[in-house]
């Protein structure tokens, strides 16, 4: 890997973190069984890992939002008692998004050591598909409330599965905190850092 291309990859990989952010620097801190379990990239293929991270992160984010999207539709039907939600175009949009993610997942190659992580992403995607199937059945058949109960169980399972593929080091977190309560640069500035270029990796 040439220095230039590696640096470019890394710069793109850390678009939500400064190069000196604690979130990147303390990469060994994630406990086994917790958020990030399964993301154990091989140290021998950094470029493959970075390629994978760049490809996987938007898919993780897409699934995260798709799960929220489908769960929100369920809430609207079940708490609002609005069966007409089943006929909204939002459901078609969710299916379209699911298909886009399916195609994108097919294009991703997981490097050695990250097969398990990729498997969790695929599994979460498959379970969201099952939840959408339940929606389709609810629209076509009687017993729609029971179908939506099933969809609710599926979407919970999909969320739990995707949560096991969360990896803060790679910017894969269930909540986008960028405007919420924190910013990466804040600690660094307090420690005397200047407002230089965010991704100045040095020479």
């Amino acid at each position: 890997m040439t220095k230039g291309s590696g640096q470019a990859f890394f710069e793109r990989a850390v678009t939500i973190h400064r190069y000196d952010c604690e979130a990147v620097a303390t990469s060994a801190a994630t406990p086994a069984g917790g958020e990030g379990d399964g993301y154990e990239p091989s140290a021998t293929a950094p470029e493959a890992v970075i390629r994978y991270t760049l490809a996987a992160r938007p898919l993780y984010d897409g699934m995260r939002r798709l799960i929220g999207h489908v769960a929100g539709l369920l809430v609207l039907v079940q708490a609002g008692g609005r069966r007409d939600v089943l006929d909204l175009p939002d459901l078609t949009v969710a299916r379209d998004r699911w298909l886009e993610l399916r195609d994108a997942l097919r294009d991703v190659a997981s490097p050695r050591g990250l097969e398990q992580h990729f498997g969790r992403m695929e599994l979460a995607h498959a379970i969201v598909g099952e939840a959408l199937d339940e929606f389709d059945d609810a629209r076509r058949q009687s017993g729609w409330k029971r179908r939506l109960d099933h969809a609710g169980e599926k979407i919970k399972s999909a969320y739990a599965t995707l949560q096991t593929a969360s990896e803060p080091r790679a910017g894969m977190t269930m909540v986008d905190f960028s405007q919420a309560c924190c910013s990466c640069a804040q600690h660094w500035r307090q420690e005397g850092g200047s407002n230089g270029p965010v991704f100045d990796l040095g020479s």
Partner: protein
Amino acid sequence: MGQYSIWVLEYSYVTNYHKSGVLYGAHNQGYVKLPYCYALIKGNGHVAMVDVGYNNKDYGKHLADKFGVENWRSPKVVLSEIGLSPDDVDTVFISHAHFDHFGNVEDFPKATFYIQEREIAKWVWAMSLPDRMRWMNVAVDPGDIVRGVDLARQKRLVMLDGAMENALPGVDVHAAFDSHTYGSMWVTVRDQSGKDNWVLAGDLVYVFDNIEGSGAAIDVETLYVPVGLAVGSQTNLVLATEEMMKQVGYEARRVIPIHEERLKDRFPSRITDQGLRITEICLADGEKSMVR
């Protein structure tokens, strides 16, 4: 003295939050402490809360380790300081669906939750938008929406379309659409005379300065300065602030901003053994103080 007691209970805090997030336009003005709190309303046989905080087990460690969110304590610990437990809570008003307000419904197994339908519907819309527009679903945990599915199935989630008078006797909710979030709301605790009303502002007002900002630049004493973060508009935040102020007879101290560290300077307060603040906004007849 009214029929309800109100406390603001701190459950965590960020020591250094960028001031521009709190006050619109306050760029390069440093950082402020941002307490994370919820409000508790007790009286008329009810224990109600405005928001429930977030659950540390999902991403608390990440927040704490990486971003300086400190000293999180569970509702069980926090509520025990005023002699209550999460099981005592029968009603929760969710001011909006950000993770630090809607992120811990599981800890309140006996409560019925109230939220604006628009808050859910518009988040669904925002989550369906292309990646390039993802800013519009910032700070929402899809897991909270997933947990909302369970609440809905258990008939413990009530979706509102705008204001609701007497959600509890003398407790109203009011909507501020397209402001801080798409379906934000605030809670007004009324008394019969109308002279002892309190507004619990959610995130429509973060700090006192959102209501009593300096008006020196335009030669007035104070003016409304909206909060920095809004997926709707600052205009709608200012309009909501005016409505809140009207409900309390323009007595600014009666609009309670839960992210305001200086509440302790304005109301009786104490710091618990865990280093968290309890602020006593008002006491109902016969209720004993929890801060003295």
